[in-house]
């Protein structure tokens, strides 16, 4: 990509590359590079270093810690972060609730939350999805009934990622049941320590605990925790979900994972050499490499259009989500197949002891990552939703 950048952009890329590699502890980056699970502390540490240098929330308004960057710079910031295996700032803080507060919140609520959000002094959770409202988000049922200067919240949220660490949760709640479903929704901030809030883990088939259910049982929430206007929450949610799609192709991350699979294949022996020499494996790998390049060029083309002055949301970003998520899944499967039989056991450590050989690299994380990665074609607007958008917005069907 470097050859496509102009001189300033190239300098900027160099600067970010240098920064990530010198300022973020190598031990954290190694965890990301090798598919290890990050602790809460790891993520907080990383984001605080970014924030100290003004790199945690570049997409926010400058007065709240953002950077007045071009779309290309924002891309470089993220791409280089992924390439350097730096833990990304928490999206719930940085891409979701932060921008909503900065755009729609009162001055008071901004001051109260934005600095703490950027510095991850508050760990935010997301309270959008409900058991019977997946892709059909607006049919949510959690209610917030106003009583004096409080809302009484009842209901259930689900798929709350890393909710076990959450300090606060931003919610879509139904404040008017008598109007069209989109028109009765509000955006409410809730302290998760409030009585009546219960977090219950959902165990996933990858063996990890990443998502949760959150229950609200007569939870009292001060009205000043409402963001913007009552019943305007759907507008804010759409704004937020638009932001969510940025960078969702995760090209840098896919490059790292693909390079890793390739490196493992190069040291995996077969009857005739290494797996990387195997014609069918290398053909499959090669096609994925070409495809990843196509994805990156598509992203750069969209950026170039933005850089040329267009600030309209680009429906081609649905192509990025559709194809980028599929590619993440394909790469995760590739890694599983590099491991072969030795990737099938559920193990937490490559070292077996007792005189047995260590397991090969990737044996711990390949298959769990394969199962975990199934989510990327489901969340953030499923592949089916993206196809619908493309067929409507780009083909007029």
């Amino acid at each position, binding site marked *: 990509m470097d050859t496509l950048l102009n001189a300033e952009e190239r300098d900027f890329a160099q600067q970010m590359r240098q920064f990530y590699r010198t300022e973020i502890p190598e031990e954290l980056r190694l965890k990301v590079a090798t598919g290890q699970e990050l602790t809460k502390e790891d993520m907080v540490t990383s984001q605080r270093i970014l924030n100290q240098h003004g790199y945690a929330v570049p997409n926010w308004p400058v007065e709240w810690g953002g950077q007045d960057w071009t779309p290309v710079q924002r891309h470089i910031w993220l791409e280089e972060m992924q390439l350097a295996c730096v833990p990304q700032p928490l999206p719930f803080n940085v891409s979701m609730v932060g921008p909503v507060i900065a755009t729609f919140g009162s001055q008071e609520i901004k001051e109260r939350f934005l600095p703490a959000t950027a510095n991850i002094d508050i760990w935010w959770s997301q309270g959008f999805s409900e058991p019977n409202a997946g892709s059909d988000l607006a049919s949510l049922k959690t209610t917030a009934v106003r009583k004096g200067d409080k809302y009484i919240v009842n209901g259930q949220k689900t798929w709350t990622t890393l909710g076990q660490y959450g300090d606060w949760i931003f919610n879509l709640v139904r404040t008017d049941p008598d109007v069209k479903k989109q028109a009765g929704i509000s955006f409410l901030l809730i302290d998760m320590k409030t009585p009546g809030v219960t977090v219950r883990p*959902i*165990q996933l088939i990858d063996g990890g605990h990443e998502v949760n259910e959150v229950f609200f049982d007569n939870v009292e929430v001060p009205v000043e925790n409402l963001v913007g206007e009552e019943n305007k929450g759907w507008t804010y949610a759409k704004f937020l979900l638009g932001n969510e799609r940025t960078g969702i192709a995760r090209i840098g991350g896919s490059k790292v994972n693909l390079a890793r699979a390739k490196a493992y294949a190069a040291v995996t022996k077969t009857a005739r050499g290494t797996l990387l020499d195997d014609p069918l494996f290398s053909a499959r790998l090669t096609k994925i490499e070409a495809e990843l390049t196509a994805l990156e060029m598509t992203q750069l083309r969209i950026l170039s259009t933005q850089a040329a002055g267009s600030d309209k949301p680009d429906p081609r970003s649905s192509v990025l989500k559709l194809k980028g998520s599929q590619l993440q899944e394909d790469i995760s499967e590739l890694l599983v197949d590099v491991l*072969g039989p030795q990737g099938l056991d559920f193990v937490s450590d490559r070292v077996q002891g007792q005189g047995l050989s260590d397991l090969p690299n990737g044996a711990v994380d390949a298959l769990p990552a394969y199962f975990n990665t199934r989510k990327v074609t489901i969340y953030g607007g499923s592949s089916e939703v993206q196809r619908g958008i493309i067929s409507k917005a780009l083909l007029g069907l």
Partner: protein
Amino acid sequence: MDLELNDIQQELSSTLNKYLRTEYDIAKREEILRSDEGISREKWQAFAEMGLLGLAIPESYGGADMTFNEVAVVAEAFGRSLVLEPFLATAVLGANAVLLGGSEEQKQAILPGVAEGQTFLALAALEPGLRYAVDAPQTQVSGADGSFTLTGEKNNVLGGDVADHFVVTASQNGELGLYLVAADAEGLTRVAQRQADGLGSANLKLDGVAAQRLDAADANAVLSEVLDLGNAAIMAEAVGALEASLTMTAEYLKTREQFGAPIGANQALQHRAADLYAELEYARSMALYSRLAVTSEVPGAEKDRHRDVIAAKIIVDRAARNISQESIQMHGGIGMTMEYPIGHYAKRLTVMTRTFDDADSLTAELAELGGLIEPQAADLS
């Protein structure tokens, strides 16, 4: 031409499926999965009492003297209910290795215990760093004349966590042999593992472990036939799991509502589900094809047996991949949770299709064997 199950097989299938529906439902399976051993010895006894474990074992060793066709009926039912106990390891891989390769004495010593549910077996054929290659193990044999010891390392030994006896592949002077090793033999270290699908396995370290050779037949031929039987059983099991997955997914599409209608009303999903159905039919057809290959009594058929089994597995693997991935996708997030069964099927299918080989290795091997049809063209001069 008759490709239908016969009356006995139909009866076996329906009895067993009925039993499993009540006695091995999701909740009971979940309980077994959470237990220390990850299997139920009580259920294993029940299977033995139902005669499932010695189906293809001759009567003289306590079995029912039936054929692999009945074994496949059991495997399919077990796949449908995601049975965790080591049926494949013990009753297919282990028992057939002893049956095909063992002496009369060895068969008498091992097989009745299998049929009675007293003995777990496991085949130790894979080794670290050798990927799916099984014909030239690094594990070495010392000794001769009935007094052998083995030294080496084995991994991914399916059912090896609970096995009482292992059938171990090892080399002596570059020649492959199959050896019987007791689980409590001195010098044997077993590290129990749990596969991603919940089934047990083990890695083994052998350090001068005493072993008996199975030498009633050529070890290469025995190993090849055992693995072909294993793959045929895997395909039968896969068909059960695939059918359950697709049924469950279709049910979900019919009941789950989004935007005021069942998601199954979406034609895009209907058409994809139809493609999956076609894949399931293919998998059924090829599981049958492999069963015919391993049970054929036509003279000379063993020549094509391995070729036909791997051709079948190419198709079953693809069905397993597509149906397991699409089942989760169509369920959405819920499909990724341990609480909901569909993900468990996906896990079993994902592991199952990579147990003795994978899609690429099968394709390359079949190509090397010359494929399934003769090249011929009328206009070649």
